[in-house]
Structure formats: structure tokens, C-alpha cells
């Protein structure tokens, strides 16, 4: 095999070869023990590194801005935002959809790619799932603070009460409450359950009483018996099967928020699958944005290999093309329908007062990812990182275009308006990144960022027959 050389540890890190006669290795130059050492070392290192402290300081500061903005909003009222008739939905909904979308990659990797037996997912699933949890937290914040009287937020839930007050079950906004909270719960359980064997590993290696006690509690008494593993794998499969429809349902329900209305540009039947594709697209972009620096900082190039990144970029290309497909079909049908308002909505998007947002969306989502047809772009961390930023921006603008252009100019020209976000809008949005990064940095510091046990299962040693034949032979994974 091309990748393997005589000296372990000094192997080429390029495993992107495409020889159909042999599967490429997914972990380069590790045996089981060295892999455990490498991942656990990140968590076990005493104290905090300088870069971590700097990043955490900035993130926490930005989270502080978020807190200040929310406090200002609650004490003053939603008038501090730019929302007003006719655009009653502004940044809050845009950011909500944006963050929910970001979360989707984690669930796709952990559930759907698991069912598809994509072994490379093991290298990235832990922190992609973590990203899911944190993104959904950020997403849940926005409708929560958008409702005006936040102290009545529990009215979102159908809690029996003496006032006979019920939420409107016919409203997709209520379906959102169910969809997102189910999604969050299942994702959290899935993430935590997958983590138990690794938490036990950290417990067993602990050198201090406190560490032993904390990780011991979190590991829920895991002893790694065969029986426990059988149960674990069965539960994993079941949770994957449960989470798979959730990947589709959550963003489908989010798309219903728009598509059940008869607002031109919103009411179109392709919205559910189109939103799902867009969500996975944006989520994978965020995974690339985070994975590239993380693997560089922690020297994880031999665990999250170039092949992993290349595969992610291929998924970006595929889902980006699906989004481009939806844009094109929508545009075609807007014309084909012969419906004046539909075709106006689309010309207004492209050439109206928000043309720049449409331009940003179309360029970043439908054109830029196509550089990934070239292998040199798929396999260069710097280049893919830049592209992933473009996609993040483009997908945020997609939601901006959908929410704002349709609301600000619908059927009645006399009630048209122009939405302009205020500084509070901007600061709240920026602040949500602070919250996301703060949680992510805490995760990196205290939880094994790579699923050690799962990666081992795709190494040659993970094959049950590995030790029976060809002892010492290092086959591909």
C-alpha cells in the first residue's frame, strides 16, 4: 500500500488515493494505544494553553454582548429591533433557521452516515454532534426572545391551564416547538450515549481524585464488558434510526413556517427537501470551518485525515448542487406557473432592493462550492476553509433573502416596506457566535473531541479476524 512505509509514525499523510483495489486507511500510523494517548492527552493536559485562554476570553466576551442585548431587549421591548410592518420577521427568524441548519450536519454524520456504513464518519462525528447541540441551543434562543413577553415563553408548550389558553395547533410555529425540542433531546441523548465508553477511558486514566470522580460519574459505571457493548451497539443503532427521520423532519417543519402561508416566494412545494439539503450544506460548511483549525492545533492530521476533509467537501459539493437545483426549479416554476405574484417575487429577489443579498446567496451557495470539482481544492485545508466561510455566509443570506424579500413586498404595493436591521439586531447575531464558540471551546477542553472507541472500530485491529491471519500485516480500514 502506498501510504504505509517501513517506519511507523513517519508515514505520508496523504491517503486520498483512489485505487479501487484497496480501501484507503482512515487512521494513519496509530495503534490502539497510541490513538487513546493522543486523544486523551488533549483532555488530560494540566492547565490551559494560551491559545485556548485567548479564544475563550474573546468568546465569553462576545457571549456577554449577547446577554447585554437580550437584557436590553427584554427591558425595552422588541422595538429595539428593526422588525416592523410589513416585515414582522427579521433577524430573529433568520438566525433561528441559520443555527438550526448548522446543527444538521452533526446528525447526518452520526445517524445517516452510520446507517450508510460510512466509516470515515468516526473521525469527525463527536465534535460534529457537539456542534449540533450548541447550534440548536443558539437557535432555540431566538424564537424564545422574539415572542415579546419572554416571561410567558412557557405558553409555547401546550400545558393544561385554568385559563383554557392553548397554543394554536394549526400553526407550524407550534410544530417547530415540538420538532426542535425532540431534535435537541434525541441529539443530546445520542451524543452522550456515544461518549460513555470514552468518558470511561478518561476515568480509567485519571491521575487525580477529582477527575476520577467527575468522569466516573459521567461514565455511568461503564466497565466495557461484552454484554455492555452488545447493549451499547443495539442502542446506537436504534438511536441512529430514530435520529434519521429527525434530520429530515426538523428542517421540513422549519420550512413549513414559510411554505404553508400563501406569501409569494414562500409557498412552494419543494421547500421541505430544499431546506433539508440547505441545512446539511450549511452544517457541513461549519464542520469544515471548525475541523480545519482544530486538527491543525491538536495535530490530528493522522486521525482527521485529508481524506475525511475531502469527503466532507464532496458532500458540500453534492448538497450545494441540491440547493442550486432547488433555486433553479423554483425560478423555472415561478415563470412557468404564469402566476404574476410568483414571478414578481423572484424578479424582486434578483433585481429588487435586496439584490445584493440575493447575489451573495447565489454566488456563495450555487457557484463557489463548484471549485470542489477540483481535487486540489478538496484537499487543501486552507482553500477549503475559505470556501466553507463563503458557504456559511451564503446560507445565512439565503434565509435573509427568503424572510425579508417576500415579507417586505407582497401582494399589496401600498403596504410595501423596507426592512433594515438595527445595531441591536447585529450585536445579538454576533453574540450568538460567542455563545456557540464558548460552548465549543469548553467541549474541546473537557471531552474527548474524537470518538476514540468508534475510530478504533474502523482500524485494522477493529476487524474481529485481525489477529487470526497475517499477524503484523497492516491492512487498510
Amino acid at each position, binding site marked *: 500500500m502506498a501510504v504505509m512505509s517501513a517506519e511507523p509514525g513517519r508515514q505520508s499523510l496523504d491517503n486520498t488515493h*483512489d485505487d479501487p483495489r484497496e480501501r484507503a486507511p482512515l487512521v494513519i500510523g496509530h495503534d490502539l494505544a497510541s490513538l487513546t494517548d493522543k486523544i486523551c492527552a488533549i483532555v488530560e493536559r494540566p492547565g490551559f494553553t494560551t491559545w485556548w485562554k485567548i479564544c475563550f476570553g474573546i468568546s465569553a466576551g462576545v457571549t456577554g454582548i449577547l446577554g447585554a442585548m437580550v437584557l436590553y431587549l427584554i427591558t425595552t421591548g422588541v422595538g429595539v429591533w428593526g422588525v416592523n410592518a410589513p416585515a414582522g420577521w427579521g433577524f430573529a427568524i433568520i438566525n433561528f433557521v441559520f443555527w438550526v441548519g448548522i446543527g444538521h450536519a452533526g446528525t447526518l454524520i452520526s445517524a445517516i452516515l452510520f446507517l450508510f456504513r460510512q466509516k470515515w464518519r468516526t473521525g469527525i462525528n463527536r465534535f460534529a454532534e457537539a456542534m449540533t447541540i450548541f447550534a440548536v441551543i443558539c437557535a432555540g434562543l431566538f424564537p424564545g426572545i422574539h415572542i415579546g413577553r419572554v416571561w410567558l415563553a412557557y405558553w409555547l408548550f401546550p400545558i393544561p391551564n385554568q385559563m383554557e389558553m392553548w397554543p394554536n395547533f394549526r400553526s407550524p410555529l407550534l410544530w417547530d416547538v415540538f420538532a426542535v425540542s425532540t431534535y435537541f433531546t434525541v441529539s443530546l441523548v445520542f451524543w452522550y450515549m456515544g461518549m460513555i465508553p470514552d468518558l470511561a477511558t478518561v476515568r480509567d486514566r485519571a491521575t487525580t481524585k477529582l477527575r476520577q470522580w467527575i468522569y466516573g460519574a459521567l461514565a455511568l459505571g461503564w466497565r466495557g464488558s461484552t454484554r455492555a457493548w452488545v447493549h451499547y451497539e443495539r442502542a446506537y443503532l436504534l438511536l441512529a434510526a430514530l435520529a434519521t*427521520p429527525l434530520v429530515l423532519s426538523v428542517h421540513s417543519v422549519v420550512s413549513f413556517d414559510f411554505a404553508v402561508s400563501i406569501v409569494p416566494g414562500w409557498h412552494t*412545494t*419543494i*421547500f421541505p427537501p430544499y431546506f433539508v439539503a440547505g441545512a446539511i450544506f450549511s452544517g457541513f460548511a461549519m464542520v469544515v470551518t471548525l475541523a480545519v483549525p482544530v486538527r491543525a492545533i491538536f495535530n490530528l492530521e493522522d486521525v482527521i485525515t485529508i481524506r475525511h476533509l475531502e469527503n466532507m467537501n464532496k458532500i458540500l459539493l453534492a448538497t450545494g448542487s441540491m440547493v442550486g*437545483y*432547488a433555486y*433553479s426549479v423554483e425560478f423555472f416554476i415561478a415563470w412557468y406557473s404564469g402566476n404574476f405574484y410568483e414571478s414578481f417575487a423572484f424578479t424582486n429577489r434578483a433585481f429588487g432592493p435586496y439584490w445584493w443579498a440575493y447575489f451573495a446567496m447565489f454566488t456563495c451557495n450555487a457557484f463557489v462550492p463548484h471549485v470542489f470539482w477540483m481535487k486540489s481544492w478538496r484537499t487543501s485545508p486552507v482553500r477549503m476553509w475559505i470556501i466553507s466561510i463563503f458557504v456559511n455566509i451564503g446560507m445565512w443570506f439565503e434565509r435573509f433573502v427568503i424572510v425579508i424579500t417576500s415579507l417586505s413586498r407582497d401582494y399589496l404595493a401600498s403596504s410595501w416596506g423596507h426592512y433594515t436591521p438595527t445595531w441591536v439586531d447585529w450585536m445579538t447575531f454576533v453574540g450568538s457566535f460567542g455563545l456557540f464558540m464558548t460552548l465549543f471551546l469548553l467541549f474541546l477542553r473537557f471531552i474527548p473531541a474524537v470518538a476514540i472507541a468508534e475510530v478504533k472500530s474502523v482500524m485494522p485491529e477493529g476487524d474481529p*479476524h485481525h489477529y487470526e491471519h497475517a499477524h503484523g500485516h497492516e*491492512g487498510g480500514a
Partner: protein
Amino acid sequence: MSAHHKVEIPDEQLRLGSGVSKLWIVFLLIGVVALGAGYFMGQGSDETREQFFRSYLQNFSYFLSLAVGCLFFVLIMRLCRAGWSVSLRRMAEIFSMTLIPLALLMLLIIPGIHDLYEWSHADHVEGDKILQGKAPWLNEGFFKFRLVFYGLLWAGMAWFFARGSIRQDQSKDHKITNRLEGLAAPAMFIFALSVTMAAFDLLMSLYPHWYSTIWGVYFFAGSFLGAVSMMVLLFHFLQRTGVLQNVVTAEHFQDLGKLMFAFVVFWAYIGFSQFMLIWYGNIPEETMWYKARMIGFGEGGWADVSALLLVGHFIFPFFFLMSRHLKRRGITLIFGAAWLLVMHWIDMHWMVMPQLHPAGPSLGLMDVLCFLGVGGIFLGFGLWQLGRQALIPVGDPRLHESLSFENA
């Protein structure tokens, strides 16, 4: 990765038996005779002609969808560098090549344009502003051009991917795999756009005022489900004749069953998205399509067919295919696959027929003749090609992965 077991398969396991390899002539004859009979019986009156072309369009679209689904199977497995499905791929390659005779059969829609498509009548278009607006797309000349274009495009793609794989049987050249995997990506691009547009043209434009952006995806969902179900039946049939023993195993059938399950759900998801959004929006120009399918509940109207699809195309197969046991047992999976192929046919019938028989479904001789006609040619051509090649891609460098594949 599981161990490389060198599996030696006797050559006669990989070739159609002599009895079966002649069957294609029978099917082809049935097809040609039935189609000819239908066509000439259709010439009797305006009514019979309309019935013939409707039935023809429905059954043509049905078998087209199976062939298109097979092409998708080939492309997606190439694109994902799949190992488990290599021994199944030849069947999909061969049956995607039925797109060659189907490209010719597509031309038989042309004499029926006036019987099928309202937009092709100049007098209708004249008094209709919306149809005038669509005239740049929905006009006879361009429509015919597109039919020929789709036909050539798909036939070319199917032939190209099948030929590469067949060449590899002899040459064992692994670079062919690389080349086809690379080309599968742009091919998928072309596939998605052309199938969408063809679904718009052939089926959606039957109601020229109606539109739905998800239509292409709906057509695709049913197509792939139908194709996988058909492959299950074909493999079981071949195994009954004594070939492919230990080559296509319960492991493969279970995975095909999983794909069926997944696409039962996907079909329902897409169908529900389309229905729910149109129902909720409640705009007359959109609801009219469903209104025609929601009349006569309990009275043999189209509403009964809609209900049947809900139960038979989703709820029942959803629970049926969930079981690992039922997917791995031959007889139960055969039942599931046959069931879904019938449901897929009813789905196609439900899309095409309500315009001609608004009161409710009425099956007649024409439906039978057109089914046998297109189906006979489709199966005949497929079996003929199958008899000329090895039944699995023997030169594929990933074949060993498929042969030793186990569901972990």
C-alpha cells in the same frame, strides 16, 4: 474490513441458463403484438384513441421510471464507491440500458400529443392567457425536441456506464472503475435536471395550469423504489433458475430491502410535503389537482385510490419492511417487492388517468395491452442483454467486498 475470502464461483453460476436465455424472444413478441393491437384498436374512434394514448403514456412512464431508477442505482453506487452492491450492479446496468428501446418508444407519444396535452391545441391556448405565457416552453416543436433529447441523453448515459463495466469483465482494468466513478458525478448532475424536466413535461403538463416545484423529486422517489423492488424480483427469479447461488445472498437482499424501506418513507415524505402544502395554502389553481383525486370516497372514486396509496404505498410497507427477518427471507421480500411494484403502478395510474375518467378508475383492455406492450419490450430487451453478459461484474476490483459482504 472483513477478510478477503477468495470465493471461487463456477462460471455457469454467472451466466443465464439456456432455457431462460431464450425467454426474451417470448417477452419481446408479446410486447410488440400487444402494443400493435392496442395501437390499431385505438384508431377506431376519438374515444379509443384517447384511451390508448393515456394508457400508453401511463405504462410508458411506469417502465421509464423503472429504467431511470436503475440508472440512478448505477450512478449512486459509482459515486459512493460502494463495495457491498457490486454484484448487484450488473442487473441495474442491464436494465438501465432498456432506456435505449424506451427512447424509441418515447416517440410514440408524439402522435398522441393532441390527445394528451391540452396546451397543444391552438384554439385552447388562444383563449387562455396562462397557456399563452407558457407557450415558449409548452409548444409542440420544442416538446418533441425535448422528448428526443431526453431519450438520447439517457440511452447514451446508460449505455456508456454499462459498456464500461462490461469491458472490465474482460480487461480487469481497475482504471475503468476510476473513470466511471469520476464521471458519475457530472452524470448525476445531468440526471437530476433531465429527469425533473421530463417529469414536468410528460406528467405535470397534462394539467397545464397546474404546477408543483417538488414534482420531479416525487417522480424520482417512486422511480428508485420501483427499480429496487424490480431488482429484488429479478434476482429471486434468476436464483430459482439455479444461477447466482451464494453470489447474491440474504445480506444483499436485506440491504435492498432497507433501500425499499427508505424509499417508501422518502416517497411518503415527498408526497406529504406536496399534498400538505397545497392543502394548507388552499389556492384553487393548486388544489384542483388534488380535488380531482379526492372525489367519490367509498364509492369507487379517485379518493379511494388516494386512500389506497396512503395505506398500500406507505403505511403497510412501512411496517412490513421494518422487520429484519422479513427482509432476509426470500418469500416475504418477494411479496413486499411485488406489492410495491403494483403500488407504484397504481401511483402512476393515479397521476395520469383522472383527467380521462373523472368519476373514478376504470381499467380496461387498453390498460392491459399497453402494460403488456411496453412491459414486454422492456423485459424482453433486458433479458436479451442479460443473456449476453456475465450476471455480475466479474472484473470489478471491489467484487470481493460484495461477495464477502455481511450486515454487521
